[in-house]
């Protein structure tokens, strides 16, 4: 239930799709991740939870190869991201889908063309085949009717579902979702949750869901990691998390303001800010 059950990883090495070992990363001098260990096995929906700014998106960027770990290894499908060249990275990314927090749809082309984009870029399929595939993917997210709309005509929840259709267009092995529940009404929330679970099961994907919506995600996930202050502070199955009495998990699951998570953003000492410097004259 805590961060150190490594025996568990070793016994299931083979079906681990994403493996993160002792990863340290920071933007510039400020450390963000300080020794993360995480495994996502094939066919699972794995949630990464933590308060805003704790480095969840950064973790996805590491897995997508947008940034490189300063220490430790990130492996996806057995390939170590730190050792891949640009070409190898692109080859790997064709088998990953990423759902950005705000969809990141291409605003100058229609919904249909957005979903068709990866197919047109990476395959030589005939336009008719592409049409069938796109409509199939749109159908999977329940938005065939929106094919001819421009992205600006979509609501936030719809845009994210279109982005999901685009992310699964090339039938990836891994889909990463960055806060798929943020800003959704309760109905869309349930729809999105079920969609993630259903797509994972029917398409044989592995899903990594970054979220801070505990209630919604615990309904659909297989395994949960809690990130705080750059490390995994707790992990377990949904049932284990709900039953947990670790202070951090308790605070998070029950949304208490006071607890082990500090209220203040990491800052220089207040006195230093006021100009009362001690170390520098």
């Amino acid at each position: 239930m805590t961060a150190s059950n490594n025996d568990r990883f070793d016994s299931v090495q083979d079906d681990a799709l994403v493996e993160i070992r002792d990863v340290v990363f920071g933007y510039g001098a400020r450390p963000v991740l300080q020794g993360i260990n995480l495994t996502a096995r094939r066919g699972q929906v794995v949630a990464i939870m933590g308060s805003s700014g704790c480095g969840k998106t950064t973790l996805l960027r590491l897995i997508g190869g947008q940034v490189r770990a300063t220490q430790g290894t990130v492996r996806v499908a057995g390939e170590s991201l730190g050792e891949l060249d640009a070409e190898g990275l692109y080859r790997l990314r064709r088998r990953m889908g990423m759902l950005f927090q705000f969809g990141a749809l291409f605003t100058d082309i229609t919904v249909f063309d957005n979903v068709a984009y990866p197919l047109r870029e990476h395959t030589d399929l005939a336009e008719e085949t592409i049409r069938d595939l796109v409509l199939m993917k749109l159908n999977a997210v329940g938005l065939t009717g929106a094919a001819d709309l421009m992205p600006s005509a979509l609501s936030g929840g719809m845009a994210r579902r279109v982005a999901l259709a685009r992310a699964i267009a090339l039938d990836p092995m891994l889909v990463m979702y960055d806060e798929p529940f943020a800003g959704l009404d309760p109905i869309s929330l349930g729809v999105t949750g079920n969609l993630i679970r259903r797509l994972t099961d029917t398409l044989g994907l592995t899903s990594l869901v970054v979220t801070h919506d505990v209630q919604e995600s615990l309904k659909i996930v297989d395994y949960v990691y809690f990130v705080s202050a750059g490390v995994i502070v707790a992990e377990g199955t949904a049932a284990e998390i709900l039953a947990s009495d670790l202070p951090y998990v308790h605070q998070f699951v029950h949304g208490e303001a006071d607890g082990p998570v500090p209220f203040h953003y990491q800052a220089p000492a207040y006195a230093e800010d006021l100009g009362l410097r001690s170390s520098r004259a």
Partner: protein
Amino acid sequence: MLRRAIENLGSRTIDGVWRIGFAARFFVAVLLHSGTAFRRFGLTIREMYFSGVLSLIIILVSGLFVGMVLGLQGYETLQTYGSEEALGILVALSLVRELGPVVAALLFASRAGSAITAEIGLMKATEQLTAMEMMAVNPIARVIAPRFWAGVISMPFLAALFSAMGIFGGYLVGVQLIGVDEGAFWSQMQSAVDFEEDILNGIIKSVVFGVAITAIALFEGYDAPPTAEGVSGATTRTVVTSSLAVLALDFVLTAFMFRGV
């Protein structure tokens, strides 16, 4: 106090140098990833429509008015020396050598350059470029390079059209309105304008301006902080920087091209 000022100066200098280095690397990357822009030339043609064709109106109208003003002013001056027939030469040479490439480039910078920066900046701010990268599509090859080549190709055509409209404007005012002899207007122009000396040099100028403007516009957009202020600041910088670049380059190019004449 002093120490802080020096620190500030130092960090600004370092930032500036770093940015120049980044810009140079960006430019090299655009050139290296230009294959797609030519292999899938449709991408480039699409951008030529957005930056070139949509700039046509402002270019044509401005060209016409600049030419008409040249006709009036030129006639006034030439008349005092009794050489009104040389009006055709004056209008054509001013346009083909200088005003065509330079004014068209300045208009292009404010019409198309700013639009390119805003578009790329917004694509970056809304994570469209990152999304593209995550789809294993290189945004430099797919988005940046086609826009670059579209601008470089469009610019000489726009300058030529500007000059053509200007000559027509000069003709309207000089010949039709004021009454300069039509035969003299055209024949003097024909004999005085040299293809290599004037027209080719004008084309070279406008190609150089096209490279400078689109490269600056694309870089500013690509480098813009991903916020509303960041993008609007970058758009302004594109217009200011690329206009100054056009004028400075024009001086340098003119000095090389026409020093012996």
